[in-house]
């Protein structure tokens, strides 16, 4: 079902930036997403997609760190789709995922179940490419001097007037898990923390180098840095581990983005309350994204933190997947009433628009936000 009516006409990234930086408290609630899978983008625009879900891009890079012709073609196709999607819905930005030449492992699942999983890839939780020090030394790390911003250069001439690029950047703890497999990484964090530190340092230097170029680009509006650190009830590893090994490095990465005057937005799934003060005060995040009602409804988070950082998204993906349009509208209304009037809030899903969300629920979320804005006189 293609989109019938965009959220709004015309892009205004400058207004979105002010919301993200809490520089305005009056005005319409804008919309934002960390990511949208290929399938829903395809459904909205009517264009084909090379990937059912963004996670299918995990094998974008060959095991030796190279990119083949097929991946290049798919990369161009996904950029074109992202651009068309942003135009069709009326986002103030176009999402770009810069090519990062780090091989990953994935576990696939593919099953045709109407309204459910079509095809999706997941990070392999057990086996990684770096099981030990020898594998770390032999790993085909990308040469930082060779890193480019090809995707951004490709899309810049085509972005809508008033829009900017939102860079989706995969975080160092995400990459650490991808390279080692979660279980192996967790065990090594106790048995061989030095190896963990060395991998994180390598990833941090790559991120600093790449983001220094990316954030300097005038067409780049903000960086959405995705680094899941928690599960339902707490952090994946101890808060002490994060404070020693991860937070200082995330700060270095955020500093690079801030050096260029761009907002640094954090997407971090799970219950990360134990880290929130460090994320705000040490890393210096400007906005926070990822909400599940099971963990903490966005309204409660907004009440606690909206005077320090912006609050992004919040409609539970579970509701977007299983709920009715009416339920989605009612929940959006609750969220907007609680988070809209104070500013520093952008509406969207709690995680991403996945290929198993109902597209009509996505449209209901957009439409309810538009209606709410109209009712407020915007």
């Amino acid at each position, binding site marked *: 079902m293609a989109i019938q009516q965009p959220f709004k006409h015309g892009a205004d990234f400058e207004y979105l930036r002010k919301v993200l930086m809490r520089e305005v408290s009056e005005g319409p609630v804008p919309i934002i997403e960390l990511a949208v899978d290929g399938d829903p983008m395809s459904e909205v625009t009517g264009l084909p997609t090379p990937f059912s879900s963004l996670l299918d891009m995990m094998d974008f890079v060959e095991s030796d760190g190279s990119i083949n012709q097929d991946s290049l073609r798919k990369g161009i196709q996904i950029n074109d789709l992202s651009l068309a999607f942003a135009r069709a819905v009326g986002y103030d930005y176009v999402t770009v995922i810069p090519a990062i030449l780090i091989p990953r492992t994935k*576990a*696939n*699942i593919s*099953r045709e*179940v109407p309204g*459910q*999983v079509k095809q999706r890839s*997941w990070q392999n*939780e057990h086996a990684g490419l770096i099981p030990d020090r020898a594998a770390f030394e032999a790993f085909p790390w990308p040469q930082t001097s060779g890193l480019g911003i090809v995707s951004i250069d490709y899309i810049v001439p085509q972005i809508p007037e008033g829009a900017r690029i939102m860079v989706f950047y995969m975080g160092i703890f995400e990459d650490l898990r991808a390279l080692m497999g*979660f*279980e192996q990484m*967790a*065990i090594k*964090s*106790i*048995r061989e923390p030095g190896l963990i530190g060395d991998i994180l340092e390598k990833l941090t230097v790559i991120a600093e180098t790449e983001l220094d170029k990316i954030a300097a680009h005038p067409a780049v509006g903000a960086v959405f840095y995705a680094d899941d650190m928690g*599960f*339902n*009830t*707490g*952090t*994946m*590893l*101890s808060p002490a*581990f994060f404070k020693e090994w991860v937070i200082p490095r995330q700060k270095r990465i955020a500093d690079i983005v801030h050096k260029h005057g761009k907002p640094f937005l954090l997407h971090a799934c799970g219950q990360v309350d134990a880290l929130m003060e460090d994320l705000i005060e040490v890393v210096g995040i400007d906005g926070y994204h990822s909400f*599940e009602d*099971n963990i903490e409804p966005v309204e409660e988070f907004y009440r606690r933190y909206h005077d320090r950082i912006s609050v992004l998204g919040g409609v539970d*993906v*579970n509701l977007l*997947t*299983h709920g009715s349009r009416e339920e989605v509208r009612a929940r959006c209304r609750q969220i907007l009433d609680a988070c809209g009037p104070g500013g520093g809030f952008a509406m969207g899903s709690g995680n991403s628009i996945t290929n*198993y969300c109902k597209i009509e629920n996505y449209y209901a979320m957009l439409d309810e936000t538009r209606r709410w804005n109209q009712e407020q006189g915007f």
Partner: protein
Amino acid sequence: MEALKEKIIAGDEAGTAEIVQNLLDDRVEVEVIMKQGLITAMDEVGDRFQSGRIYLPEMLVAAQAMKSGLAVLEPLIKGSGVKPIGTAVIGTMRGDLHDIGKNLVIMSLEGAGFEVVDLGMDVPPEKFVDAITTHQPRVVGMSALLSTTMPGMEQTIQAIETAGLRDGVKIMVGGAPVNQDFADRIGADFYGKDSVAAKVFAVQSLQG
């Protein structure tokens, strides 16, 4: 026995195996080593995890240590008359390739003395039914990380009911998108927010 507990809690595999062997050499009974050493240590690990004093990695290395101790005992367990306290069948729902949560529950159940039949990931309802028929467990555990695989829990419970096996088992469910409301709605007996809660429920299930 106190030293054995400390080695397990510290995740010291070699140290755990060595102490278990020493205890056997001193003619300490297998059942005593199991109950007062391995199970007590894993109970303590579970308590520390639930109260936020340790995290997943500490649990994983403790489980590794416990298994190294168990490996020393295993050849002797059959002849010792030590029986598992109960049987549990557990798996991740069809369409779901995530099993860290399920594996933590298995670890806790084994640490408590259960025999666990692990059906693995991506498990269809009929496989649960077959396993219940074959192994006759008291406890069935289902795990889902994804919104899309949660409905598989309801389908599995229905399949168990249709097969006439529902009255003989206690069904517990868990995983990131699962909550008490959902568990109530699909007719599960228990929603566990973590592996320790699952273990406590499983042990209680043996009593009635």
